[in-house]
């Protein structure tokens, strides 16, 4: 196992870079953890949620009554009616919810037709659910009154609704309820594992590619080939060493992820995140392998590690949720394994329960990632064979 041991000796040289990435990640992790804790504490308190209302229907009694009613739950934030500014406001959490009342809404509603309000919101934010509920309550109640008391004026309608909905139910925070706790944990894990994707890319490309670069120098290859050890044995030992490094690294982050988790929960969702991360680690390993056998300088590997990890992280939604990314960016990202890794994490986060039907939803992203790994490994084998032919 000389090659196996040598792998880790060479690896030590890159330990500093990997520790820097790891330290960076743990820093981000602390922030995520603290943020999740704050959100957990605030979750069931009544509060006014900042929202933006875009009224395309104009002012009328129905809309005025509705907005007065909603004012008890939200704070209206005035923001210029510009698509970019609205998206920025959501991204920077200036508002949690953007409600658009389309033109002709009031007329259609009062005529008893099917109507729809448009909404944009921060994904997975509990606050948005409260706004949804408040809006639904108002219009459902209005619908009931309109159906059974069609002669009611709008002012009377508003009065009745307000009286009906004014009754407050006190909510007790029950931290023994596993369902609630679990959802918070999912938010944490989703952010954690999405960000981990970036670290895996950066660390594996830095670590694995550097070691392979050393082994793939022509003169070293020749010296190894002249020794009484088969190329097959060298390759098997290298693959084994790569797997040991990658899987150990991933397991360390599973443990760190658990330790930083505010709720210390391990459930089916956690296992699914772990599975997705292991699959992505294998894809990343294959990417690192192809870089290691094609790139010939250390500096180039550093540059590629930085550009690739940051580039993929930004376009695939590791840092910025996919909901906030443009369609063109997402279309481009869908040609990368990182997109499918994030997609799988997001899908796991949205699962309300872990029924077979729900779990099946991540088959496709997992399968696509494995497909990427297989394709990259095949390409690596072709390149490796060509290089050895060129060398001889």
């Amino acid at each position, binding site marked *: 196992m000389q090659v196996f041991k040598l792998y880790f*000796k*060479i690896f030590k040289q890159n330990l500093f870079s990997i520790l820097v990435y790891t330290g960076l990640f743990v820093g981000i992790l602390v922030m995520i953890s603290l943020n999740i804790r704050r959100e957990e504490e605030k979750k069931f308190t009544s509060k006014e949620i900042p929202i933006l209302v875009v009224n395309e229907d104009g002012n009328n009694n129905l809309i005025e009554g509705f907005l007065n009613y909603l004012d008890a739950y939200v704070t209206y934030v005035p923001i210029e009616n510009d698509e970019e500014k609205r998206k920025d406001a959501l991204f920077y959490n200036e508002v949690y919810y953007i409600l658009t009342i389309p033109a002709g809404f009031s007329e259609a509603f009062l005529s008893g037709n099917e109507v729809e309000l448009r909404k944009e919101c921060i994904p997975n934010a509990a606050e948005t659910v409260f706004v949804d509920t408040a809006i639904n309550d108002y219009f459902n109640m209005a619908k009931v009154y309109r159906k059974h008391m069609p002669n009611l004026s709008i002012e009377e309608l508003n009065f009745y609704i307000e009286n009906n909905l004014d009754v407050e139910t006190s909510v007790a925070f029950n931290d023994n309820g596993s369902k609630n706790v679990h959802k918070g944990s999912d938010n944490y894990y989703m952010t954690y594992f999405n960000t981990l994707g970036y670290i895996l890319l950066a660390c594996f490309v830095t670590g694995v590619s550097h070691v392979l670069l*050393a082994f793939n120098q022509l003169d070293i290859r020749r*010296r190894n*080939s*002249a*020794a009484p*050890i088969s190329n097959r044995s060298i390759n098997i030992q290298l693959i084994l060493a790569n797997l040991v490094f990658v899987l150990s690294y991933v397991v360390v982050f599973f443990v760190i992820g658990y330790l930083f988790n505010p709720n210390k929960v391990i459930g089916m969702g956690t296992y699914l995140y772990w599975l997705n991360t292991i699959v992505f680690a294998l894809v990343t390993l294959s990417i690192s392998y192809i870089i290691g056998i094609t790139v010939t300088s250390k500096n180039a590997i550093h540059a590629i590690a930085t550009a690739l990890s940051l580039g993929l992280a930004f376009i695939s939604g590791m840092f910025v949720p996919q909901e906030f990314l443009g369609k063109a960016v997402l279309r481009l990202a869908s040609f990368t394994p990182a997109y499918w890794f994030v997609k799988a994490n997001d899908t796991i986060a949205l699962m309300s329960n872990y029924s077979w039907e729900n779990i099946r939803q991540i088959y496709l992203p997992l399968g696509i990632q494995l497909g990427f790994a297989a394709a990259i490994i095949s390409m690596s084998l072709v390149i490796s064979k060509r290089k050895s032919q060129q060398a*001889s």
Partner: protein
Amino acid sequence: MIVKVKGLVKRYDKLVALDYLDLEVAEGEIFGLLGPNGSGKTTAINCILSLLKYDKGSIEIFGKPMSADAYDIKKDIGVIMQNVAVFEALTVYENVHYFCSLYIKDKAKVKELTEEAIRFVSLEEYRNFYPKKLSGGLLRRLNIACGIAHKPKLIILDEPTVAVDPQSRNKILEGIKRLNQEGATIIYTSHYMEEVEQICTNIAIIDKGRVIAKGTKDELKSMISIGEKITIETYQGNENMVNELKAFPNVFSVELRDNRLEIKSNRGKNNLVHILDYLNKNQISFGRIVTELPTLNDVFLEITGKELRD
């Protein structure tokens, strides 16, 4: 024979790198493979080591056919490549230890041999240095230590002194002689004729992938007509003197260039004495006199019509 190469042909598309090359290396000798750059020396070595596939011919080492998976043969061969092949991430000790461990399984033995190899190339004080911190000469010595640590019976050195300072070069050449005295058979390739002359017991001169002459250095030199080269500094030389000297016994070439008289002659006992007599009688004053025996470069020049370093 330790190494027997017969009719070796290697082509790179239309370029013939080895053209029915024949070599025989006997046990205990230092065999020199001398030739200019691009003559096929490294290709021949790579074929002998099965690092390169060849088109025709056969190679036997220790009496057995050599192949890429002939590990029982490979374990007794030490290789020192033209380029330094060491891991930058490992120290001097770790590099030697790693390459030695590819040949020897016993851990204690590997340690012992590693120490011995480091001592052999005088790198004791650099044992914890990384290759980046070593000079070109020290790096070459490390390269050699990596190739010989397992005490091979056959050591192949492919131009091990390229870009090495004279002090390190001497150490390397002395080391090769010592390895040979300790029982190793050596194949040494170089385009430096002085080195080959200095250490090799048998020499093959190679050009365009073909052996053009082989034998001991004396045998090779006896193959050519030139026996002695005499260079005399004089400011009174003229055409008449050149013609008269050409008529001397054994002399076959006289040239006057830049106040230097260059006389080439066949072997003869008193060639220089006759020439000096002539100069004294004619009261031709002269300065420095240099006499040289033929070199392998002269051999190469006479056979191919070009210099070894062309």
